[in-house]
Structures are given as structure tokens and as C-alpha cells.
């Protein structure tokens, strides 16, 4: 029997003719018990993935437009939240985790969400004044429709897997992995299991620079690899990393996004973060990709890490099927598990993306360039004296 392979063009042609079969990654996982990858590749053309979770390393470039007389903005706040103005005259970057100096529960993520929702926000900026930009101060209300660009630019999104967190200590910890109760009373995890984008194409065969991405409700792009991109994490027998590995830098037009998929959040005693909806449509080009997208929750494991100890040492591995059940057997007792990302929304996102692919609203395009085949992550060394180059 000859092996079935399909090209991107062939799948696009089928989509155009209305003959393509598009399903979600959860539906693909359900087929794993009855179908072999060789049959799957003949039956299914595209598989949609999705996640809706906290992605701290996010933010938005904004161009306010030039006032008259013009200003080279230096110290900028929006509704009291500092935004980065160290870029040309009226460009700024709103970091999602930046906070209001007097209200640690309100920050950049809220500004991003409010701008997307079309709220009027107070902009204040100060400058030293130059011959070409004489204005020194400005105070005005900005609105989505009155600024030039709002470009969501997230340096590290869609982590390929992430460790689950627990707490061995005798006090409650408030972390970016949520509330961790003392003495291993609970375990929190953040990945959407079999729906998670980068777990359905673990070696990034179909995702690379230029790939279209469902980002916050709009069609954005993969700009580059994300920061802390790591290809060298240990993997299971299916080649799926056992902890946080690859990441993506994503960009998209925030004016087209919706607060259904971009939501500000606050983690107790940790700070402000942004929930981002991210999804990819993966073409089932061959048997290998069929095998990848058919991945089930029981086929994906992550590492349980102890957040009470420096360096968050690993305590063992666990599958998403177990984590998603709500209780797991851990260290001889029953422990509750809870997600941080919304599986319900992940499902909804994958369904939305399915309709977008079928209607042609979401394009299927091969990457312009691949992401790194090999990349590791290093820590920050404390060096007391400047090293001299040899």
C-alpha cells in the first residue's frame, strides 16, 4: 500500500472546493482508538488546536499619532500605568505585566483589554522638548479608532507544555501557577492537553516564521521563535517534551481582536497578566502528522515541580489525562488538580478556528522559514567583574 501524502496546495484546493475535512484536535484524539494514522491522513485534512491561558510575556505596540505641536514622548502613562516610551516619538509598548504604582491589581493587561473594547483612556506624556519636537507635556484621551496602530506583540506565547505546580511547604504560596496550598494539598497545571497547539506538532513541521495564527480573535502571524525557545528538553516516546520547551513570538492587529480572547487577569500576590487565545490549524500532510495530531491526553506527560523550593525541583511526571480528571494519586494520597487555562474556551477556540478554516477566513500557508532546530536556554550568571575579551 502506498503511503498517502498531501501538499499544502492540495489541501487548499480541497478547502476551496468545499471537500476538505476539518476537525478539532480533541476530535482527532477521540479517533485515535479506532483509526490508524494511515487511515486518518486519508480521512482528515486539517486539525485545529487552541488554548486560552495566562501568557505573561505579552504586550502591545501602539502609535498614538502626532499632536500639533509635536512631542517626543518620554515618560508615558495610560490611566496611570507606565508604558515604555523609549522608541521614537509617539510609539509606545504596553507591557502586559506592568502595574499601576498605586494599584498592583491593575496594569498593562487591563489597558490592552480596555483599548480593544473601545474604551476612552487617559494618556499622559512628558518630554524634555527639542527643536524638532517642542511640546513638553500632553494630556489627552485615546481610543482604538483614533490611534494609528495597535499591534499585539508577544515575545513568548503558546509554551509547548508547562510543568504542573505543587507546594511541599507549610504555608500557602501565591504564584503565577495560582494558589498552591500547603503540604501538597493541590496541583495546578496550565496546558490545554490534547488541544494545545504545539503539542499537536511537537517538532514544528507546519509552524514557522510567517505561519498564520489565531491570536486574540484575529489572524496574526508567527514573527519568530519565542524567547526561552528550547528544543533540548527530554521527550516521551512520542517525541513530546516532558516540560516547557518551544515558544512562539506572535504578532497581530489588536484592533481586530476581541476581549473574548484577550483578557486581563490578576494572580494574588504575583501580579497582572494577560489571558491570550491562541490556535493553529495543522494540515495533515502525511502519516507522521496524522500520528502527531491524534495525540490523546494520556499520551502527553508533564513534570510536577515543587514551587516551595528554589529552582522548583521536579517531583515526577504525570499525564494530562490524570491531571484533567480532577484528582490524582500523589505521594500516597489523593490530591486535587486544577487547570489555570480554560479547557472550555480552548475547545470553543478550536471550533471557531474550524469554521474560519472552512470559510477561508483563516489561511493555510506553509512557513516562510523554519524555527530553530536546536536551541537551549541558559540562566543568568552573577558576574562580579566585567569579563575581558580575549
Amino acid at each position, binding site marked *: 500500500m502506498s503511503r498517502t501524502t498531501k501538499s499544502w496546495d492540495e489541501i487548499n484546493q480541497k478547502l476551496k472546493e468545499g471537500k476538505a475535512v476539518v476537525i478539532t484536535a480533541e476530535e482527532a484524539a477521540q479517533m485515535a482508538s479506532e483509526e490508524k494514522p494511515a487511515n486518518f491522513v486519508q480521512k482528515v485534512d486539517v486539525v485545529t488546536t487552541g488554548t486560552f491561558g*495566562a501568557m505573561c510575556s505579552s504586550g502591545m505596540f501602539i502609535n498614538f499619532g502626532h499632536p500639533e505641536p509635536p512631542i517626543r514622548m518620554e515618560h508615558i502613562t495610560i490611566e496611570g500605568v507606565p508604558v515604555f516610551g523609549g522608541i521614537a516619538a509617539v510609539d509606545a509598548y504596553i507591557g502586559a505585566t506592568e502595574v499601576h504604582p498605586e494599584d498592583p491589581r491593575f496594569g498593562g493587561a487591563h489597558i490592552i483589554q480596555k483599548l480593544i473594547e473601545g474604551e476612552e483612556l487617559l494618556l499622559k506624556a512628558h518630554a524634555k522638548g527639542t527643536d524638532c519636537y517642542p511640546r513638553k507635556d500632553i494630556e489627552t484621551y485615546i481610543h482604538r479608532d483614533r490611534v494609528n496602530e495597535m499591534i499585539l506583540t508577544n515575545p513568548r506565547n503558546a509554551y509547548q507544555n508547562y510543568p504542573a505546580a505543587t507546594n511541599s511547604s507549610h504555608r500557602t504560596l501565591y504564584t503565577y501557577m495560582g494558589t498552591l496550598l500547603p503540604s501538597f494539598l493541590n496541583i495546578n497545571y496550565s496546558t490545554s492537553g490534547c488541544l494545545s497547539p504545539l503539542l499537536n506538532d511537537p517538532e514544528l513541521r507546519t509552524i514557522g516564521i510567517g505561519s498564520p495564527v489565531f491570536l486574540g480573535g484575529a489572524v496574526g502571524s508567527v514573527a519568530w521563535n519565542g524567547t526561552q525557545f528550547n528544543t533540548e528538553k527530554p521527550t516521551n516516546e512520542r517525541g513530546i517534551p516532558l516540560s516547557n520547551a518551544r515558544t512562539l513570538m506572535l504578532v497581530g492587529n489588536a484592533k481586530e481582536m476581541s476581549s473574548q480572547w484577550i483578557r486581563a487577569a490578576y494572580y494574588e500576590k504575583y501580579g497582572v497578566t494577560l489571558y491570550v487565545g491562541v490556535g493553529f490549524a495543522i494540515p495533515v500532510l502525511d502519516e507522521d502528522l496524522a500520528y502527531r495530531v491524534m495525540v490523546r491526553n494520556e499520551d502527553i506527560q508533564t513534570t510536577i515541580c515543587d514551587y516551595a523550593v528554589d529552582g522548583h525541583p521536579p517531583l515526577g511526571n504525570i499525564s494530562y489525562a490524570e491531571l484533567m480528571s480532577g484528582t490524582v494519586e500523589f505521594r500516597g494520597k489523593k490530591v486535587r488538580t486544577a487547570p489555570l487555562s480554560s479547557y472550555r474556551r480552548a475547545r470553543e477556540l478550536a471550533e471557531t478556528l474550524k469554521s474560519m478554516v472552512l470559510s477561508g477566513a483563516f489561511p493555510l500557508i506553509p512557513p516562510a522559514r523554519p524555527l530553530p532546530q536546536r536551541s537551549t536556554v541558559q540562566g543568568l550568571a552573577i558576574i562580579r567583574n566585567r569579563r575581558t575579551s580575549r
Partner: protein
Amino acid sequence: MTSKYVLGYSAETVSEPILWRLVKDFDIRVNILRAEISPGQEGNLLVEFGVEEEEKLSRALSWLESIGVSWVSVSKRLFWDEDRCIDCGSCSGVCFSGAIVLDRTDWKLQVNRDLCVACGNCVKACPMGCFTLDFGEVS
């Protein structure tokens, strides 16, 4: 039937054997779920009252009021902003009363206010700020 209350003790009444009187005179099964009494100040007691007849409960509550002990039904203290909720389920892992459960089939959050013991864990665990307890933060 059982129902949960937060009793507020004032400095004057805190010395009275209130619970003993509730059992003996009002025939109420008292289960203390949490007690917080600050030295020389006011105290908060989370209790579950079990009664056979509702009439006994209302008599007991009137008596508590008459001696200066305030009471508030706990099931009315938890507020869940369902419109704001994204059904992530972060709160479900820290709710030990069974009031908050994440349905593992449709992955929707289920909140049963009657089971709430007002521990406040969900208030802190929710990244969207969906939960409030109207007496503020419980430590």
C-alpha cells in the same frame, strides 16, 4: 436540615456559653467549622446548625440577636460573577467544601452557594476576580 452561619460576637457576649445554650435550650446540632476570635476584641464563628423543625432555628436566631450576637447566612455571602468567568477552574482546586466544581464533561464551572463555608480561597485563586465574599477578605 442544616444551614451555615457566620456568628459575630461582640466583646461583651464572647464570655457567654452560647453554643451550650443553643444545644440545650434550642435543640440545635452545632458544628463549628471555623473560629476566629481576636484577643479582647470581636470574634467570628463559622457554624453549621442542624435542626429537625425550622421553627426551632428561627427561635434560636432570634435569641442570638437578642443577646447581641449577629448572624449571617453563609450561602448568601459568596458572589460569583458568571459573566466575567472564563471557566478556567483555578478556583475548583482550592474549594474543599464542594461549593465550586469544574464539570469535566462540558468544562463549565458549577457553583453551589449553599455548600460554601466562606473560606475565601476562591476569592484569591480566581485570576479574573469573579468571586467576592461580602464581609471582605477572610484570612
